[in-house]
């Protein structure tokens, strides 16, 4: 027996949740599907390929005040930012849930990033299994799958006009609307099969490819914008700046990326990654070498956003193939 909820009841449940807490869900905005705060369940888009931006924005906002410093009666007070309100993030696909699990590793390892931890703790993740794979998708090569419930609190899988409900955590179970859920004999349809990418052994092969001229040739066409990093569910770098005015100081962090020219420029002007090739290489070494060496799995989840949106078609799937070939050649 499986638990199911009808499409109509799902919307009623979401309407109920919107009344109780912040609900972030995919919704239309100028022809794009983006995760945003919704105030009506009817605005939520249930069938979509993938949002333009990943849901990481809900946990690591584009910009966020870390703390404020103010003068009060001659004293200087430092007030850390806090986030308290309960939140539901609805509609993320398993690749994006895996993306959150990837970012958790550096940001929740002690000493944890306090604000990120608060955002994560207050949020329940309700995911949607994918009913089809886009031409850019390759999640099954990156340790997750279109129907993977493992990094979510609840996974919904569409079957005709209903959804199979799988609550995998206590947090998820606590949120389920028992009055709207029925028991059923239905089984989930087989998940779609995204394209496979040869990731096996890539970490070892990457070790030998660092000095290859491949990277500078690839970087010829790279524009060195931050687009790939900003649409990516696993990129988590940021910059910090203080905003000072008469009222006090705000310390703000905003997304930043290894592709931007000033990212590694040090005081005095020295830059350990001064060339386009060195910067582009860093992106792929972080995901396919440094991250797995530290944390035991690849730092890419195969959502395909960078493949789809890169203005000059720098395609990580192609790079993995090319590096495997380079590795095979050097063994001969």
């Amino acid at each position: 027996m499986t638990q199911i909820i009808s499409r109509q009841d799902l919307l009623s449940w979401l309407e109920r949740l919107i009344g109780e807490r912040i609900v972030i869900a995919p919704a239309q905005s100028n022809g794009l599907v983006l995760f945003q705060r919704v105030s009506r369940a009817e605005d939520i888009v249930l069938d979509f390929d993938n949002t333009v931006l990943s849901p990481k924005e809900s946990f690591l906002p584009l910009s966020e005040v870390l703390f404020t410093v103010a003068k009060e009666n001659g004293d200087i007070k430092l007030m850390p930012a806090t986030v308290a309100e309960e939140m539901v993030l609805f509609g993320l696909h398993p690749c994006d849930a895996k993306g959150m699990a990837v970012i958790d590793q550096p940001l929740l390892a002690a000493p944890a990033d306090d604000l990120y931890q608060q955002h994560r703790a207050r949020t329940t993740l309700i995911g949607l299994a994918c009913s089809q794979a886009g031409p850019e998708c390759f999640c099954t090569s990156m340790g997750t799958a279109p129907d993977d419930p493992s990094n979510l609190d609840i996974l919904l899988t569409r079957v005709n006009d209903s959804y199979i409900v799988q609550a995998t955590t206590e947090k998820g179970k606590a949120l389920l609307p028992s009055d709207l859920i029925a028991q059923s004999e239905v089984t989930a349809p087989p998940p779609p099969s995204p394209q496979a990418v040869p990731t096996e052994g890539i970490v070892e092969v990457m070790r030998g490819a660092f000095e290859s001229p491949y990277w500078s040739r690839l970087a010829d066409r790279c524009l060195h914008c931050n687009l790939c990093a900003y649409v990516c569910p696993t990129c988590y770098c940021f910059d910090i700046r203080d905003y000072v005015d008469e009222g006090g100081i705000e310390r703000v962090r905003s997304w930043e990326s290894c592709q931007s020219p000033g990212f590694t420029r040090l005081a005095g002007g020295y830059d350990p990654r001064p060339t386009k090739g060195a910067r582009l290489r860093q992106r792929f070494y972080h995901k396919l070498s440094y991250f797995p060496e530290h944390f035991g799995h690849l730092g890419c989840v195969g959502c395909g956003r960078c493949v789809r949106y890169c203005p000059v078609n720098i395609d990580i799937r192609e790079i993995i193939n090319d590096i495997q070939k380079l590795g095979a050649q050097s063994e001969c």
Partner: protein
Amino acid sequence: MQEGLTQQIREKARELLTSAAVDCIIGYERASDGLTARPLFAYEPNDVDKLIFDQTCTHNLSRFLVDKRDSTVAIVAKPCDSRAVNLLLAEKQIQRERVYVIGVVCPGIVEATWGQINDRLQARCQLCREHTPPMYDFLVGEPTAEEPPVEPYHDVAELEAKSVAERQSFWAEQFARCIRCYACRQACPGCYCTECFVEQLDPQWVGIRVAPAENEFWHIIRAFHLAGRCIACNECERACPVNIPLSLLNRKLEKDVLELFAFRSGLSAEALLPLATFKKEERLGMGE
């Protein structure tokens, strides 16, 4: 016809690389979706068979000339792209003898995103006035008679007709989506500053905060820095992941410069740029 263009480009490229007249050809190859195009840097005669030209070749490759200014390169240039080459020459960013321009008579570029082609011409191509490049060293394709577009600024005029408050709220809504990835800047052949004002620390013109005031500041200054310089290739808008209609801003300024100075950027490498030129007899129009 387009297979003919590809063949002619390949032959010229092979000749230039074989004779070592250039170090590299900047052209187009098929993208990883098997449908659209992407930039190709061909260094060896063996690479030239990857070169293509068709109606998906949207990129303005002149954007790469500043990166390659220490080499001698050949570039495949559509008419709009060759206007950007003129702009870079007029602004002394590249040396004429180091750039060999393979101009292409342009059939117009279709709307496409990765993995998807729409057969409709891009809006900028529907408004095109030059199907033959204004400058080139070698021309591919047969020039045809030009028909000037009807009402090229109709959408700009619609926006101009709105009240200040309406325009403000329109742009506030558009800029609110900006994630400040700077893909618009990086795709632009006219944005070649070694350090962009937005990243300068001393003085700090605009902070890193992604918020309405900072986003608006970024977009206004970006557009103004391109006033009288933008050649309307619209690569900025194409690169934008969140569909901000940058062409509206760019073309508003293009229209103003056309009306005030009777000037369109990039038609000649010798032209004086109106906003970078001071003439003693010019009056500032501020009651002097």
